[in-house]
């Protein structure tokens, strides 16, 4: 993973185009993996996202009464 190169202005080290492309490819692959998950697993992840996001949202704004993690099975 150490494919960095010197480019651009000054002495700041920049990643090579190949390195950036590899990162993007990895992200695309991750998305594709998530897209083909079984639907119940996707819903389980939605509920997990709700649980993770909920405490952050409560600090940002007043939530509507229905904006809370679902207490259901996926």
């Amino acid at each position: 993973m150490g494919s960095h190169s010197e480019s651009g202005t000054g002495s700041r080290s920049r990643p090579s185009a190949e390195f950036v492309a590899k990162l993007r490819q990895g992200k695309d692959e991750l998305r594709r993996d998530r897209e083909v998950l079984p639907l119940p697993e996707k819903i389980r992840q939605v509920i997990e996202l709700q649980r993770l996001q909920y405490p952050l949202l409560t600090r940002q704004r007043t939530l509507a009464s229905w904006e809370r993690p679902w207490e259901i099975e996926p």
Partner: protein
Amino acid sequence: MAFADTLRALNNMKAEGVIEEYAIVGALAIVFWTEPVATYDLDVLVFLPSGAGPLVSLESIYHWASAHGYQADREHILIEGVPTQFLPSPSKLADEAIETAETLDYQGVPTRVTLPEYLVALYLQPEARTAKRRERVAMLLDWRGLNRNRLDAILERHGLSL
């Protein structure tokens, strides 16, 4: 309670004539087609039974919900633990979205889900444009499964643009 119970309830509403047809839209439709995204409610486009009169009312839906023990919470109805919002089709575009929805299987429950190209078009309506929706459009446009020809035809037909 399970998510499949919520979907089953939608089908029951149709079978009982409370709604004529439905299609899931919004973030959960995206989840069906692409990847999990954070959302707290289920959005459902519906055709109300014909003869309901020129003024659209959700009274029949609220009555059905009450009869089945589902609580209403402002504009949502808590169906088997899932806050669900019903929107009577407001436009020709939404009509098409309902009519062309695909039936997908969720744990044995047939579920009508709006096609992704219609999700993009619905998000692109001037009155629907928000930062979050633009983000969802970008997500769907990135998705390899999107049918660009179908999307272009929908956008042209309804005078919308990316």
